[in-house]
């Protein structure tokens, strides 16, 4: 492709990994970082965008320290953020089960699960603080599941052979988010955090090379508002909605990080997209989202398809001998709890062979054996809300008929590039949670997203942002600065441009077209030909959007069509970068499966000699990026082909 410039030896990507053995890096770094005097903290303004697990925990913790925090959410309330929908659980290496867990094991599992495409030092720190998260949440009154003796219960998740997942029925994300929301609410009450609901960030303000504020649209009035600060924290989640159909909430979007990217923040590994194996299959054209069924179901459910192509018998009439429990067959040691990328790809494989349910795109997740083994009541206790959810959507009773599931876009490992301090390539711009790229490599393990969001927000950013503030000199910046004015004019122009096209195609129609392109060619399996095609197809679709989209309504009003139009305009650029990144990476790793690069058994074939790097893309101008590479060094773990057999 002519539009990639590669910078081989990179001076712009300093990961700032502290010296010393991995066990003491974080401890030493915490000591070496400069502190802000308690009485000076209130002189610093910090903007936090997003109120999910990462954003709410960061805003609350920074408020507790005494900083002046402004928190922004596009929702009507911070409690709506999509972290709330996480079902299964949160990992922590407490070793409460006495089954051999440790910080090192969680570190190892996470690096291996991510197929050796993440930074050792960051992941070790994540494992190191994981236990503190559980302590913190319990102190807040989060009602985790407990055993009869009153101590905390654990369950198992994919990619691990220990039981380290803490949970609150099938609503762990909800309970953890409400914990962080309660801490945030307390800081709002104390006046340490000022909350701005129904505001969507549309631009990042960079002055003298550092992040100094944001410009937002007030979603109720349409007014463009400007806010300045000494540092900006983005915790705005992932962008699986680039596929239109995903498990993400309707409003989850890439706009905040994308606009920051266009202001200079490098975008890392944009193509690493997790396709979750256990979602409800598609029902028709009007479908607006795909519903996730928690991975925890794979603790007791067995995944199978008929052995014969096109076997259309109802599941209860397919005898044991005619069933293929393909995960148990291919990966005997992990079985139904194989990692997400492997499980998803295996489902696609059997469906492509024509062995899906009724020859279509679905596989069975069967609880009959588990019900026989431990009884219906025990299953109800563990999963009743998930079973109810399934029945309500599909009209079928999973206690009697096996569930039908199929993979769907769920989580994005890629995101804005950050160093060890979670700071992007723009000084003063910090990125947390799913919005950054840092900890999950090419594949995230189940129950690790909640862990990372809260680790970043509660236990990392409160230290590292202090060091940034203490070691920088700040000139006064007001929102009258010309950069704010320029940005405001640009946003108004952008909005007017969208409203004045008045074409024939709706925003959703274009978004659905983009989603199909992405799913077919930048989805579970990718190849050079498809990726080259899709880059030009996305670029044509982008032209179609700017010529023929119809955005009804006014700028100065509550206008949901306009909100969606701005987000889709960004997806049409981001989608192209995802394809470009996938094309650059001539290997398979984790969720990134290039058909040209597979072993004889059809497993992902990494190329550690040539692709053991983080691809960090610098925005040049529309459709043009420069590639920077951060080499990944593995000092503590031995690079090995992943095996779950």
């Amino acid at each position, binding site marked *: 492709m002519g539009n990639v410039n590669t910078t081989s030896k990179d001076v712009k990507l300093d990961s700032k990994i502290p010296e010393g053995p991995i066990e003491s890096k974080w401890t030493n770094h915490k000591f070496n970082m400069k502190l802000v005097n308690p009485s000076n903290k209130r002189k610093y303004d910090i903007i936090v965008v997003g109120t999910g697990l990462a954003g709410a*925990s960061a805003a609350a913790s920074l408020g*507790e320290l005494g900083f002046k925090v402004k928190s922004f959410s596009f929702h009507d*309330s911070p*409690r*709506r953020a*999509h972290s*709330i*929908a996480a079902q299964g659980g949160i990992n922590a290496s*407490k070793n409460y089960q006495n089954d051999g867990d440790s910080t090192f094991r969680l570190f190892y599992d996470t690096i291996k699960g991510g197929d050796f495409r993440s930074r050792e030092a960051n992941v070790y720190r994540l494992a190191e603080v994981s236990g*503190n998260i*559980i*302590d*913190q949440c*319990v*102190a*807040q*009154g*989060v*009602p985790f599941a*407990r055993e*009869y*003796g*009153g*101590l905390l219960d654990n369950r198992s998740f994919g990619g691990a052979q220990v039981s380290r997942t803490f949970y609150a029925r099938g609503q762990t*994300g*909800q*309970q953890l988010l*409400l914990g962080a*929301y309660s*801490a945030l*609410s*307390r800081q*709002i*009450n104390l006046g340490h955090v000022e*909350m701005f609901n129904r505001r969507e960030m549309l631009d990042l303000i960079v002055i003298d090379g550092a992040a100094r504020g944001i410009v937002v649209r007030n979603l*109720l009035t349409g007014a463009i508002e400007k806010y300045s600060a000494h540092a900006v924290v983005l915790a705005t989640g992932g962008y699986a909605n680039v596929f239109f159909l995903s498990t993400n*909430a*309707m409003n989850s979007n890439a706009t905040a990080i994308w606009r920051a990217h266009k202001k200079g923040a490098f975008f890392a590994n944009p193509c690493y997209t997790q396709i979750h194996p256990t979602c409800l299959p598609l*029902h*028709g054209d*009007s*479908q*607006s989202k795909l*519903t996730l069924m928690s991975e925890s179901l794979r603790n007791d459910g067995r995944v199978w398809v008929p052995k014969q192509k096109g076997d259309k018998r109802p599941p209860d009439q397919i005898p044991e001998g005619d069933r293929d429990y393909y995960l148990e067959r291919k990966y005997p040691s992990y079985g139904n709890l194989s990692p997400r990328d492997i499980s998803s790809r295996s489902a696609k494989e059997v469906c492509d062979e024509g062995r899906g349910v009724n020859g279509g795109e679905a596989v069975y997740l069967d609880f009959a054996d588990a019900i026989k083994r431990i009884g219906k009541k025990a299953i109800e206790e563990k999963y009743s809300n998930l079973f109810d*959810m399934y029945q*309500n*959507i*599909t*009209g079928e009773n999973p206690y009697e008929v096996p569930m039908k599931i199929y993979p769907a876009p769920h989580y994005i490992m890629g995101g804005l590039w950050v160093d060890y301090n979670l700071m992007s390539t723009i000084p003063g711009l910090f990125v947390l949670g799913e919005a950054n790229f840092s900890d999950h490599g090419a594949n995230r393990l189940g129950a690790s997203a909640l862990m990372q969001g809260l680790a970043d927000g*509660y*236990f990392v950013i*409160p230290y590292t942002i202090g060091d940034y503030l203490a070691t920088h000199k700040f000139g006064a910046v007001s929102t009258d600065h010309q950069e704010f004015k320029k940005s405001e004019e640009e946003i108004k122009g952008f909005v007017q441009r969208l409203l004045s096209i008045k074409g*024939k195609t*709706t925003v*959703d*129609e274009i978004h659905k077209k983009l989603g199909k392109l992405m799913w077919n060619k930048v989805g579970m399996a990718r190849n050079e030909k498809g990726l080259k095609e899709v880059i030009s197809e996305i670029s044509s679709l982008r032209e179609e959007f700017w010529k023929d989209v*119809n955005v*009804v*309504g006014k700028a100065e009003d*509550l206008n949901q069509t306009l909100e969606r139009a701005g987000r889709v305009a960004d997806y049409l650029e981001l989608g192209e970068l995802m394809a470009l990144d996938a094309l650059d990476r001539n290997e398979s790793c984790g969720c990134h499966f290039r058909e040209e690069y597979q072993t004889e058994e059809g497993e992902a074939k990494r190329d550690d000699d040539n692709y053991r790097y983080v691809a960090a893309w610098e925005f040049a101008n529309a459709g043009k990026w420069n590639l920077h590479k951060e080499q990944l060094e593995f000092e503590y773990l031995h690079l090995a082909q992943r095996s779950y057999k």
Partner: protein
Amino acid sequence: MDEKKLNLKLKIWRQSGPQTVGSFVNYNVTVSTEASFLEMLDELNNGLEKNNQDPIVFESDCREGICGTCGLVINGEPHGPLPKIATCQLHMRNFKDGQTIWVEPFRARAFPVIKDLAVDRSGFDKIIQTGGYVSVNTGGVPDANTLPISKEIASEAFDSAACIGCGACVAACKNGSAMLFVGAKVTQLALLPQGQPERNDRVMAMVAKMDELGFGTCSNTYACEAECPKGISVRNIAMLNQEYRLAKIKSKNVEA
């Protein structure tokens, strides 16, 4: 899944802003039985946009019944005719061909209409901000397993904590009372050992804020429990009343 189509007459509340007068507008739609109620509205809106008409404003986010963003009154019932689900979980197979469906926003004094079917529920946040938490800062907390809590208590606390803050309880109540919402949070924290130190102050502050914001009182019709998508029990209201009385007795402030 076999797809069948339904022809429906919709009567949807349209209101251009908080200060304007709204009215019902008729729409005829054909929709798949497999679609969800909100997907039906998506399709309707897509058609309106194609004809250069303003789409119907309604709010939703997760579309799996957990974020609490959505909330419509459908044929007079908050979240529609089925028990224990949010509006986004309602599917069209529960309606009959030819049926007329009335769609309105949640209505309550404390939930003013913003536009069409969207209402302002920020009062809920304000109530939580006055005390719906345990006052612990990040860090410096004891190991999680140093605080055993019986499975039963943890489970009961969870039942209360399952509230999604959608406001259906307020919309269902003829008095626009928020006592189920407040009761659920007060109960969760009153049951748990972590909530004990602030137990009395919490309930006093939350109830005072609830009254100040114009939410009504409870007159025991149990409509809130019937419409709650998470099945939060009215026992939470009984608990709230009890907690409030106890807190008042222990309070050092003597009322005139």
